[in-house]
């Protein structure tokens, strides 16, 4: 099993550009999450999904959108990139909600200039 994979690993965007961060998991997990992590900080939840077709906002959803058309994929869309979105983005999945272990991808390091 590859676990959770994310692409790209690095990306530089200009202000106002858009992009999609890809996330795929092969563990058949229903729950998937997108977090951002600023330098030296913990993780902030952007969006999450409890199953295909169902998504919900986390703590910091502004400037982002998600979709969940399949169990495996949970892409994160950035529209009109801003410098405040410079961060490392992690996708995670879990079999159980709440107390379930979350498996994280390797992250995407995004810089907006």
């Amino acid at each position: 099993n590859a676990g959770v994979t994310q692409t790209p690993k690095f990306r530089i965007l200009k202000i106002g550009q858009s992009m999609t961060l890809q996330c795929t998991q092969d563990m058949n997990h229903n729950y998937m999450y997108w977090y951002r992590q600023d330098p030296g900080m913990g993780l902030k939840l952007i969006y999450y999904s409890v199953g295909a077709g169902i998504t919900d906002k986390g703590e910091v959803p502004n400037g982002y959108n998600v979709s969940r058309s399949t169990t495996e994929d949970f892409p994160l869309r950035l529209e009109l990139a801003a410098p405040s979105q410079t961060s490392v983005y992690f996708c995670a999945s879990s079999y159980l909600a709440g107390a379930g272990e979350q498996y994280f991808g390797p992250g995407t390091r995004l810089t907006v200039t």
Partner: protein
Amino acid sequence: TQLLEQSPQFLSIQEGENLTVYCNSSSVFSSLQWYRQEPGEGPVLLVTVVTGGEVKKLKRLTFQFGDARKDSSLHITAAQPGDTGLYLCAGGSGSRLTFGEGTQLTVNP
């Protein structure tokens, strides 16, 4: 909004020393998890505690969940350089986890 506060934020110690990291909240969580993260990688789960007062041991690491399920601690005995990393606590509620800001631990040889 549920918040988790970790202390200390940074900790630099010598190999062989003991240390304790704290994770506190004013909210009750259904579970408390501890993750460790190394540079350039995603966090990896160390332990999950779900019962108030629960204590779990993982080799030299001891985890405790507070009786009221609002706080937790991580104690490392005889720290080694391989323990260096960012330690994150995370409280479970519903379908989500709320993460603390992390404790950056450096163990010097």
